[in-house]
């Protein structure tokens, strides 16, 4: 089930991303392990989201190597198209400003997430058009999976609502559920606690722990909310101005003078 224990699930080596003259990320290396929650933190503009966008194929990195390894195989993400990163390398993500299919129902959002599997089951639509039993079975399974995750994130009651009509916190949870429906090995969450109230934050921490422990996958998250980060992460990477300034277990990072300087410095400026 798990990959080669000596190889981390995700290895980022010397990642650099330039936009014109601006260096958004500069020579960043870190790794994220299976069954661990790795957090990337840092002040605004530190390049966290850019790292994510490189990882998930939305920006082609200027240089560097991004490797995902599991099930005894490795994928070089910097050479893959975005949809293959999600489909083949099994890296799923959420977005800083939630990107749901707002006009579609909650359940449909989760079914669309299982597109590739269903597409095969429907024999690229043909079997589906004629309603063959193999496709109907696959669809029942897909609904079961969706129901499982809806239960997990507490959205069963609103499964048939339009996703765009959900309250903000529920939309965030739905986005995580949707990402999980793609059966990822690495789940990348871009500020999942942003805009949540303390209770919702606590629920989120609970959910992420559950995902790590029960589904045994790696979680990579960008977060501003330090309480969430310190509570649940196993490993923390700190970025500032596109560079990595610290890395380690949360207790250690919290006491790192470089980190304190970066955060205090930011507050001093603001």
């Amino acid at each position, binding site marked *: 089930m798990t990959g080669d224990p000596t190889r981390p699930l995700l290895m980022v080596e010397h990642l650099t991303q330039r*936009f*014109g003259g601006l260096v958004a990320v500069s020579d960043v290396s870190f790794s994220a392990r299976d069954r661990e929650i790795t957090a990337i933190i840092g002040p605004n503009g530190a390049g966290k*989201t850019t790292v994510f*966008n490189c990882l998930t194929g*939305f*920006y082609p990195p200027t240089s560097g190597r991004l490797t995902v390894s599991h099930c005894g195989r490795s994928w070089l993400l910097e050479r893959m198209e975005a949809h293959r990163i999600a489909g083949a390398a099994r890296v799923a993500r959420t*977005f800083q400003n939630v990107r749901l299919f707002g006009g579609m129902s909650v359940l449909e959002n989760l079914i669309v997430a299982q597109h590739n599997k269903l597409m095969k089951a429907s024999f690229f639509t043909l079997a589906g058009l004629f309603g063959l039993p193999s496709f109907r079975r696959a669809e029942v399974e897909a609904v079961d999976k969706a129901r499982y995750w809806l239960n997990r994130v507490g959205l069963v009651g609103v499964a048939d609502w339009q996703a765009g009509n959900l309250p903000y916190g529920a939309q965030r949870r739905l986005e995580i559920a949707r990402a999980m429906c793609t059966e990822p090995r690495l789940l990348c969450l871009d500020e999942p606690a942003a805009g949540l109230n303390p209770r919702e934050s606590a629920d989120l921490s609970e959910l992420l722990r559950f995902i790590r422990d029960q589904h045994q996958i790696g979680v990579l998250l960008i977060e501003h909310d330090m309480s969430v980060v310190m509570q649940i992460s196993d490993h923390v990477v700190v970025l500032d101005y596109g560079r990595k300034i610290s890395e380690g277990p949360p207790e250690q990072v919290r006491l790192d003078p470089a980190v304190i300087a970066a955060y205090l410095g930011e507050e001093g400026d603001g």
Partner: protein
Amino acid sequence: MEYFLQQLINGLTLGAIYGLIAIGYTMVYGIIGMINFAHGEIYMIGAFVSVISFLVLGAAGITWVPLAVAVVLVVSMLFTAVYGWTIERIAYRPLRGSTRLAPLISAIGMSIFLQNYVQLVQGARVKALPPVISDVIVIMVREDGFKVSISYLQILIILLTFALMVGFTQIILRTSLGRAQRACEQDMKMASLLGVDVDKTISQTFVMGAALAGVAGVMVTMYYGVIDFYIGFLAGIKAFTAAVLGGIGSLPGAMLGGLTIGMIEAFWSAYFSVEYKDVAAFAILVLVLIFRPTGLLGRPEIEKV
């Protein structure tokens, strides 16, 4: 060589006209991100107004050419500006902040309406006007008698376009109106928070673009001498191509794009085939969008994820 030179002159003239229309597309697209589909019709209306004004002036006995041309230019700019303002006010402003499709559909509807309105009130037949300026300067003569010439009209078109270009660039760069336009282009919400009257700025953009299209209408009337209610569609698409080719949102880009399209059209008809000259223009549009979507002078943009 001589033949080439002649085509260059013709291409420049044609390109100047396309460039003037393209500025209207590029400014509107830059500021509200929509294709003003009815812009080609404004140009067509400009051409009709110029024909009418020439006839009225002729009937009134004003035949001194410089005065007549100046009056016609001003009159056409005035009326097309009113059309530009009205169209924005009626068909686009209420749809601002609506779905992406709605203003485009509304613009297409407006374009169809204006075309048929002009056809209805002015008739469907081609309007022909005798040349207003017909003198030419012969630049050189080939042995076989082929003359390379530039007409006063061509000189007028090129110089006027150049002057308008310079004038408008100065407006954008130096006046408060230009600053407001650039601010809206960057971030409309922020601009309005900072006290820029967004509605007014957008209206003025439409008025400016329409006035330039009006000038192009006058030029085409004098250059070709025949117009009809349908000329706006093709010229509109070509000018839009020019705007895209130059890099949408960029004023010099629109002019450069216009000149390129004019040139391609002139050379294509001269050396290959007249029939496919429009196909050439469209093919350029497709190729540019595929290989360099930001155009020649456009800034690359990074899609925010």
